[in-house]
């Protein structure tokens, strides 16, 4: 400080300053102030721009767009949704193939031209979902009313005309009310088939597997030659036979439904004239993109959001919904909080209320603070090496020997992910709780102790309630951080596609060892690992919007809870 004061003194001694009564221009540092203000403005522009970008792209991704029929200068035609339009630099080779008028136009734009990306769909015909159309090669753009946008279960979306719908042997036009009803019926049938396959048949399979494992367990604990094993085998065989019969009955039922399903078919014709016939149930949604009104568009938009939120993904995660990922993110975050809350609070209590405040505690506190800055991937490495490979492998040896060599807990899973993230966020909770504890006035503790309350009573009735807002804030901030982390999860249990949710109707209902899907990893996977990152982009943007909204909601909750609890305790000062 002394240096500053000296500077000030010398400055005020300077004749310039003592003599003049007015502020000099140089002293205002106006250009510097503007650079400072500009930096702040840039920072705010970055964040606001970023959020607007995500919001706009995420919110508009599911909006049904019109279909354009584009005729190129060479006569070829494509039909597709205009996805985006951008300026691009025309390469020299491309330029050489163009005529003079087009070249002049590009020259006027300093070598740039505009192009539009059309989502043509029809991957099964074109081997691509997208097609660029530069403005200088397009001859005509139309929007015919009879072009349909068809979302299919396989091969992505279809753009073209619907030739006919075959309902139980009868050919109908697509705008026939019976065709629409048949489609709804077909979808219901597909739902029934799926619920049988995944629900009832899945349960039977799980029970057969459980019988098999129980038998194997007897074989391991008693040896295959023992009478116990022979007895268990007889019993297991009988049960498995019963289950097999049950399975057969369900499979027959599915077979019957599928045969029925085969009788409802639809024929699609793409713009070039090639056609394809598929089952009506394979169509998720269809609409004449250029003929639907604004209200219908809103309906489609909302139904797509509904599908996005409650359905499972399909087409390598680039379509369908993200329900398993939402579920996985929530389950993981919840488990994490359950793990982190007691430990974080207890540690903070120890550091603040029990430990002797000395050099040792200061060092521990610095370390805990620093652990908040240790890269999350390091926790992931630890989680994999310690939780999954060391702890999990021992659990498998002890409790699940019948399943070896395929690991149960000895590989990444929900439990290990939650614990890893709990470890990652425990410093956040410790620091927040400590701050909250420190904010409780000393006089209150002393008052309580002076009244004869024990230390634990003081903590329980005086300190903790008052520190609760701070603790809650810390916990929710930890949740927000945990929900957004992806890197450590990539090592300890997140997968791109989990066949089963961690909670289902099969005993023991909560499957902590299962790997799970996660919104953040979903973004990484669809954006980077899918066959066509362009096709997955709308999906990624919507997922991004959802994830950011979730985290923002958590942060907002933290603030609301803090404020409410603050108000509650505001009046009860000593």
């Amino acid at each position, binding site marked *: 400080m002394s240096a*500053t004061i000296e500077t*000030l003194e010398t*400055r*005020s001694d300077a004749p*310039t*300053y003592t003599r003049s009564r007015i502020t000099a*221009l*140089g*002293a*205002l*540092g106006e250009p*510097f*102030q503007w*650079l*400072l*203000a500009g*930096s*702040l*403005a840039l*920072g*705010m522009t*970055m*964040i606001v721009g*970023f959020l607007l970008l*995500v919001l706009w792209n995420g919110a508009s991704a599911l909006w049904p767009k019109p279909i354009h029929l584009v005729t190129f200068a060479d006569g070829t035609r494509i039909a597709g949704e205009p996805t985006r339009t*951008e300026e*691009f630099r025309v390469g020299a080779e491309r330029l050489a193939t163009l005529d003079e008028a087009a070249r002049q136009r590009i020259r006027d734009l*300093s070598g*740039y031209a505009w192009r539009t990306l059309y989502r043509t769909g029809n991957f099964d015909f074109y081997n691509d979902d997208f097609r660029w159309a530069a403005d200088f090669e397009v001859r005509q753009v139309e929007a015919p009313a009879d072009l349909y946008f068809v979302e299919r279960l396989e091969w992505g979306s279809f753009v073209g005309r619907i030739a006919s719908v075959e309902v139980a042997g009868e050919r109908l036009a697509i705008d026939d009310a019976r065709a629409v009803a048949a489609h709804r019926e077909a979808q219901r049938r597909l739902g029934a088939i799926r619920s049988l396959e995944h629900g009832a048949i899945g349960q039977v399979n799980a029970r057969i597997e459980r019988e098999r494992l129980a038998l194997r367990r007897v074989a391991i604990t008693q040896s295959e030659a023992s009478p116990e094993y022979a007895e268990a085998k007889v019993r297991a065989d009988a049960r498995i036979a019963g289950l097999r019969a049950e399975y057969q009955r369900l499979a027959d039922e599915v077979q019957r439904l599928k045969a029925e399903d085969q009788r409802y078919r639809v024929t699609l014709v793409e713009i070039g004239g090639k056609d394809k016939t598929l089952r009506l149930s394979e169509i998720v949604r269809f609409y004449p993109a250029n003929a639907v009104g604004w209200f219908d568009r809103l309906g489609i938009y909302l139904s797509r959001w509904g599908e996005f939120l409650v359905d499972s993904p399909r087409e390598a995660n680039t379509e369908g919904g993200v329900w398993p990922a939402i579920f996985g993110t929530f389950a993981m975050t919840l488990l994490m909080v359950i793990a982190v809350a007691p430990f974080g609070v*207890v*540690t903070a209590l120890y*550091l603040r209320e029990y*430990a002797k405040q000395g050099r040792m505690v200061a060092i*521990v506190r*610095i370390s805990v603070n620093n652990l908040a*800055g*240790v*890269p999350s*991937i*390091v926790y*992931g*490495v630890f989680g*994999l*090496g310690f939780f999954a490979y060391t702890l999990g492998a021992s659990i498998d040896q002890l409790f699940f020997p019948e399943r070896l060599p395929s690991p149960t807990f000895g590989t990444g899973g929900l439990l290990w992910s939650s614990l890893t993230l709990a*470890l990652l966020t425990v410093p956040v909770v410790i620091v927040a709780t400590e701050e909250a504890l420190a904010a409780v006035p000393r006089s209150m503790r002393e008052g*309580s102790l002076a009244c004869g309350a*024990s230390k*634990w*009573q003081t903590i329980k009735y005086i300190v903790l*309630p008052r520190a609760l807002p701070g603790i809650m804030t810390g916990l929710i901030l930890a949740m927000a951080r945990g*929900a*957004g982390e992806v*890197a450590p999860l990539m*090592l300890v249990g997140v997968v791109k596609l989990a066949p089963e949710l961690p909670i289902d109707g099969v005993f023991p209902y909560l499957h902590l060892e299962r790997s799970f899907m996660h919104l953040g990893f979903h973004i*990484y996977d669809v*954006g*980077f690992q899918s066959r066509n990152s362009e096709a997955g*982009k709308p999906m*990624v943007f919507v997922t991004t919007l959802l994830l950011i909204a979730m*985290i923002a909601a958590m942060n907002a909750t933290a603030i609301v809870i803090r404020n409410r609890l603050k108000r509650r305790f505001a009046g009860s000062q000593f």
Partner: protein
Amino acid sequence: MTETDAVLDPKPAAPLRRVTRRSVLIADKVADWSIRIGGLSVIVAVFGIMVFLAQVVVPLFTGGRVLGQQSFKIAGTAEALVAGGLDENHVVAYTIGRDGEIGLYHVASGRRLVVPPLDFGGKRATAFGRSIVGGEIAFGFADGTVRFGKVTLTADLVPAQALPAGLQSLGTDRTDGAAVFSPLAGDQFRKTALAVSLDAEQRVAEGRAIIALDYRSGGTVERPVRTFVTVDDAGVPRLSLAETRINMLTRQARTAVSTAVLPPLPAGTPVARAMVSEKGDQVYVVDRGGVVFRYDTRDAKDAKLAETRDLLVGNATIATIGFLIGEQSIVVTGSDGSVAVYFRLAQAGATTTDGFRLVLAHDLKPHTAPVDAFAPSERGKMFVTADTAGSVVLRHSTSEQVLLSLTQSGGAAKLAALAPREDAILVVGADGTATVWHVSAPHPETTWASIFGKVWYEGYDGPAFTWQSSSGTDSFEPKLSLVPLIFGTLKATVYALFFAVPIALLAAIYTSEFVSPKVRGTVKPVMEMMASLPSVVLGFIAALVLAPLVETFISSVLLAFVTLPLSLLAGAYLWQLLPRDLSLRLGGGVKLALAFVALFVGVLLAAYGGPAFERLFFAGDVKAWANGDIGSGGPFTFLLLLPVAYVAVSILSERMLGDWLGIERAQPGVRTGLTDALRWMVTLAVAAVAAAILATLLTAVGLDARGGMVSTYVQRNTLVVGFAMGFAVIPIIYTIAEDALNSVPEHLRGASLACGATPWQTATRVILPTAMSGVFAAIMVGMGRAVGETMIVVMAAGNTPIMEWNVFSGLRALSANIAVELPEAVKDGTLYRTLFLAALTLFVMTFVVNTLAEIVRQRFRKRSAQL
């Protein structure tokens, strides 16, 4: 609160009761202990992370261990032995003698098993050759004939019921006299046996004794191709190709041998060994003095003597020579105890006919006595050397480390062998004592030097830092140097901080010093919101939205670095034109709003000026320019010099022109503002001229920024990473720095302002120096975050492990590397442990940086509390 009241309520009866209720006491004790234990265990657990990581890493550096040792006597003399080996499970050991005698021994008991000898028809082999893998052997005889054979150790599973009757016991194992049956779990036995075959004679050198021979077998099962090289006692080297065709109809094999005589050796060369590569394109003949004659036999009909080179130092004679697996490395041992590894490398200045040269790549730790036995590994770059004094060394060629130093008591080593899984060594001494060591060396390729230093890998021109953990080919050697990854991490951090630190700090100063608390109340949460953006989202936007945009409009992006500050400064000089009372009344918030406008103008200028800027400075194409294809480095040097020149000139002009024009002392107003704006423009012009002159001079000298900081453009580059990382780092630095600035005691600020200092003077001369340590801590914490950031670098950095500071190229960071490779790494393998070391490195790096920041911050807190 009612509960609390109930407990605290001083009940009238209380003073009488002196005894605390037992339940309260017990609860207190329980809470006391559980909180203590819980708290301490969390702290222990948190430190346990570091210990656990270290414990996984340690085996990388422990070399090898001996698990057990067994000795037995072999039958016959050790002098006659030409080859030997162990099976995969080292149950048995075999030896082959010059006379065709085969010894098969049960290792644990030393008992000899019965194997019929190879039938040489009474002849004695004068030369012997074998392949490294596959047990292909060849013998040369005094009459100029060659015979091929095959020795294979087989291991088959036999159920207990199928065991032959009448087995004799060999400890835990059993034998029928020829094969060994070892019990396994689950009532099974493993039958280990030796299978030997010997083909018919091939006549190669008519009437002359073959003194050196080497043999490789290749081709397919249907059409085996055998390549072998022979040297006869007249010193004539021959390369022969024996192609066997099996007639599909008659199932008869016909072998056609084509022999090419290679250019002769100098007369009287005492030939010691001959070697041939598997494809038959290289032949080496070595004389006793260690001179190697290397033939280029890619065209066998027109073979050339490509190179002659002495591989040994001084008068030493050659003891052994042989390939390591992959045939890129040649191990040479000498009578002086030296052990050296040579590579055949393509070198630009090589004087040889084929452009290749033998280069000494690894000079390994020598023995004290002549090294008479050498055995390569079948799967890696490990090998065994044994000397005449009884010392046996297990080493690794690439890492140059000695894994194990052993001693055997059987006199001079005559034969050495390494088990197929690199887990046992067999050495036979001159007195016939065979010793088998069961060893474990799971990570022979890693040492501190190989992970953090330069390593000379096969096929490389010299030692280098390389990270390449996997490849498609089998003979691939993982290259695990962490240096390129640490470099990548530092590169990302440095460029991210270049971008983030100025913005965050300047914004923090403005927020803390120049805006009203109300504006601050909205601005700060907005900036902090940035911190809660998940990094996977940032990475996705950076890679899929930003990177293509930056690539298309790279010239505008570069121009923005010039136009943004310029438009802000222009805004400042325009602002100064406002009447003083008006500008005072408008204050910080309005200025901030106008800064947005200035920023927008700057962006527009950059967007529209981009193409012109590109033509003017980058010869019309930034990417081609950066690649060094077109244009000169001058204009870019000018751009780099411009800010430096501007700062220098403006300081000068303030000192001189300011006084002269009277601006320094003049009252703010339209007139002064105009003069000042004019001065600014002149300053800018002078700076530009100065920078241009300097740039021309530097370019004339030959300085070009390209090749260093600017070079070949790739889409996912450090510019994009730096920008995306800014989102992660800016809010952290901003928040901590702003807190530090804000916690400077209010009385200092008040005193300064009361003395007549302007807010700007107060900020730079009072607040900033006081809060300096807090600001420093903010930068350190931001750096810690940048070092550990994973998803952004995984997605936006391209993940190429290169070491260059080029801002237009990608990088591979430690964190990204872990995230990408660890899921596929085999548990407890070398890669797995190396990745744990990478994690430990990250841990230590961030821990050090954060601890430093924390200590500085605490000092700052203490200091500001004293003020």
